[in-house]
Each structure stands twice: as structure tokens, then as C-alpha cells.
């Protein structure tokens, strides 16, 4: 999940203009959140989606190309009413409102500038709000607000551009390397921590935002913030114990540790001796990940990534 600037940069130089479609309302359920975007390039390139593919995105391509030709913005309603699908019982019965507008990539564009500003704010660790107003065929107007309090009076369609979730990986193992790749693709900001410089390398962690080598328990501490995810992938008590002593008492959102049940119980017992409470120990996900039966680093990383997504989406997690 690339952010807006990354998406635009991947298109710039290849497309002069694109139709930007933003999901502004959904009735009957939507697989994507409001604000989801799809870009339809003048030269035919596609990026992003406002649904999960299928007939809705196909309509966006069609409408996007039309509005690029007409050089105007329009709020378009897409109803999933394919007769054949209805007869087969395969229709989802949803209806989507999309704001589709041409934006320039070969020069200044107010819509691009607004989202770029909001993205820069979110990259600094704060949420930003983009308020879009649009009447008839007029070009949409946009306001970027760094404070939620101002949004109430602004009206229009409001998008919250949240900072990326941070995933802190302690232990630059092969599982961590695979998980860093998955997490980056999921839009997370990955911080890798290890005491060994031969492991925590840019060659192994190309997508990581930060590679930190030193005393892991000290390097991790500034990242133990509310909303952050922490995964101990070292499989070594020398890092696990000192990091967990702090992490399980911090506001961090998720703490998981790569360990079999027996070793995990052993780590819990040592931490209990150190004075951690049952409530604190209960925050530790170990064994980590969803039980999908994989054994290779990528398979284990996939099971962990799936658990992180479930936590992010507020789904209940069965303890293993």
C-alpha cells in the first residue's frame, strides 16, 4: 500500500494526465475504505483500485477515460446491477459514489498538491485531513487541515490521511527479512533492530525505513509508542528478555515473539520472576502468527503479517 506521493511518483514521467477516482460513498458494503483511489492514465496505465477489481474498477476505467477526454470532474455513481450476475446470485448489491477528476502530472495541479501536503504531514507522524468540496461539474476544491478540530466546520468529504503504522522488528533474521517485505507492502513503516551489523544490513532489509544496530533494548525504547507493532524475531532470549521487560509495560499496540509454546512459556516464567504481572504477560503473542502450518521463513512471515492485519482491523485473535 504505497502512499499518495509514492503512487504519484510512480506515474509521473509516464503519464501527462490521469483521472483520479476517489471512493466518496458506499451503500451496501465496500471492500475498500472511503478515500480509496484509482488512477487511470491518459496513456492507459492503471494504478490502485476503489474496489477489489471486477466490474466496479472496470467502470472507473471507462468513466475515467471519458472524463479525461471531456477534461472535467464528475461525481459518478456505480451500481453493481449486472443482470447476469443477479440471475446467477453473484451480485454483491453494492452502490458506490466516486469523484473522478482529471489531474495533471506534468505540471502543478491543486489536487495533487493537496494530497502531497497531507501525505507529508502524515509522514511526519501526524494525521492530516483533506476536505473536498465539489458542486456539479466544477473542479473540486480542497482544504488540507492538520487538526481534526477544524474538520467539523469544514463540511464536504473528509479523508483522514493517517501516519503509517510502525512495525519494529527485533532480530534481523530471515523471518524478519521476509516480514519486512510483507509489512512494507501492507503500508507499514518498518524499523529493524539488532545487535549484529552483519545481519541488519540494507541488502537484507531493502524496504526498511530504519536499520538500527546497537543495544536492542535501548534502540527499541523510543519506538514503544501507542499504535506501534513489535515483533521479536531474534529467537534469542538475550534480546527478548530485556526488550519485553519494557515493551509489555509500554502502550505499544501489539507484541509478538517468534517461539514455540514451550520456549514461550519459559520466557514468560523468567519475566514473571522479574515482576511482570499476568496482565502484562497476557499481552504477549507467542507463538506468534496465525496457524497456517508453514515452516519456511516466508511462510512464517506470512502468518505473522496476517495476524498484524487482523489486529489492525480489530479482529479477535485466537491464542495459540
Amino acid at each position, binding site marked *: 500500500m504505497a502512499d499518495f506521493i509514492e503512487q504519484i511518483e510512480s506515474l509521473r514521467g509516464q503519464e501527462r494526465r490521469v483521472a483520479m477516482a476517489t471512493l466518496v460513498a458506499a451503500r451496501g458494503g465496500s471492500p475498500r475504505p472511503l478515500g480509496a483511489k484509482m488512477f487511470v492514465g491518459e496513456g492507459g496505465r492503471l494504478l490502485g483500485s476503489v474496489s477489489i477489481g471486477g466490474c466496479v474498477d472496470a467502470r472507473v476505467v471507462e468513466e475515467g477515460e471519458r472524463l479525461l477526454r471531456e477534461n472535467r470532474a464528475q461525481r459518478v455513481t456505480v451500481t453493481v446491477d449486472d443482470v447476469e450476475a443477479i440471475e446467477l446470485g453473484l451480485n454483491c448489491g453494492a452502490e458506490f459514489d466516486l469523484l473522478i477528476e482529471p489531474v495533471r502530472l506534468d505540471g502543478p495541479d491543486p489536487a495533487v498538491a493537496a494530497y502531497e501536503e497531507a501525505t507529508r504531514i502524515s509522514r511526519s507522524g501526524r494525521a492530516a485531513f483533506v476536505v473536498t468540496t465539489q458542486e456539479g461539474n466544477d473542479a473540486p476544491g480542497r482544504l488540507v487541515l492538520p487538526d481534526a478540530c477544524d474538520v467539523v466546520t469544514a463540511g464536504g468529504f473528509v479523508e483522514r490521511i493517517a501516519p503509517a503504522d510502525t512495525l519494529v522488528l527485533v532480530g534481523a533474521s530471515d523471518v524478519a527479512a521476509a516480514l519486512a517485505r510483507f509489512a512494507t507492502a501492507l503500508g507499514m513503516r518498518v524499523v529493524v533492530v*539488532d*545487535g549484529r551489523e552483519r*545481519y541488519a544490513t540494507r541488502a537484507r532489509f531493502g524496504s526498511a525505513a530504519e536499520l538500527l544496530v*546497537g*543495544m536492542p533494548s535501548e534502540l527499541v525504547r523510543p519506538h514503544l509508542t501507542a499504535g506501534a507493532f513489535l515483533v521479536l524475531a*531474534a529467537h534469542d532470549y*538475550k*534480546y527478548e528478555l530485556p526488550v519485553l521487560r519494557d515493551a509489555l509495560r509500554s502502550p505499544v499496540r501489539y507484541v509478538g515473539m517468534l517461539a514455540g509454546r514451550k520456549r514461550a512459556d519459559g520466557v514468560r516464567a523468567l519475566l514473571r520472576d522479574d515482576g511482570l504481572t499476568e496482565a502484562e504477560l497476557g499481552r504477549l503473542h507467542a507463538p506468534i502468527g496465525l496457524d497456517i502450518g508453514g515452516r519456511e521463513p516466508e511462510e512464517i512471515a506470512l502468518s505473522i503479517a496476517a495476524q498484524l492485519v487482523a489486529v489492525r482491523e480489530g479482529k479477535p485473535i485466537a491464542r495459540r
Partner: protein
Amino acid sequence: MTTVYGATVLEHFRRPRNQRRLERPTVAHEGYNPLCGDRVRVELEIDDGAVRNAAFTANACAICTAAASLLTVQITGASTREASLLSDAAMLAALGGELPPARLACATLPLRAMRTALAALPAPA
């Protein structure tokens, strides 16, 4: 049955002494083993040629953590010369147990960190 962890190692690993940061260390050094990843920082407060306070921070195995703990106990109050003369053999003997050759580097890492820290002291006039 031989055991890697003698009673001293277990005692100092589970209840390490002087595991903290010093507010104003005179010298400090962080040593690490690039292969196993043991890291230990030894901090010393030196006053009038003697070690007034010694403390350590470790993300390290039980042997290394115990050795750091034991080291700080042994050198507190000692002269810097006495501390610098503390030998690997003396440390291994103090730890007890039957350390395999592969773990000797763990046991002596804090000692090496301390020696490097002391080497940064200005030579006496």
C-alpha cells in the same frame, strides 16, 4: 553431570548486580560479539585512581550477563590498576561451572569492555 551454568552464573544472571546506567561515568565502553550478538556496556566512575562505581547494561546471554555483574562487584572499590590486571582466568574461575571453549568469549566480553574503557583514562602524571 557437568553444567555450563554454575550456581554463580545462575545467581548473577537472575539477580544481576549493578545493572543500570551511571549518571556521570568517567569512562565507558560497549563491547559486542559480532557473531552471537552479545552486547554489554561497562560504565565506570573513577575517583582518585579508584573505581568508585561500576555498572553495566547488557543484551547478552546468561554467561555474559553474569560475568558483567560479577565484574562490577569485583572492581568496585579497587584501584584502576588492580581492575586492569584482572585476568580472564580469574574471571572464569569466579564464574565456576564448566564453560565450553565456544563460550569463553561470552565470559570475557565484559572484562574486555572494561579494559578498553580504562585504556581511555589519561595516563597518571
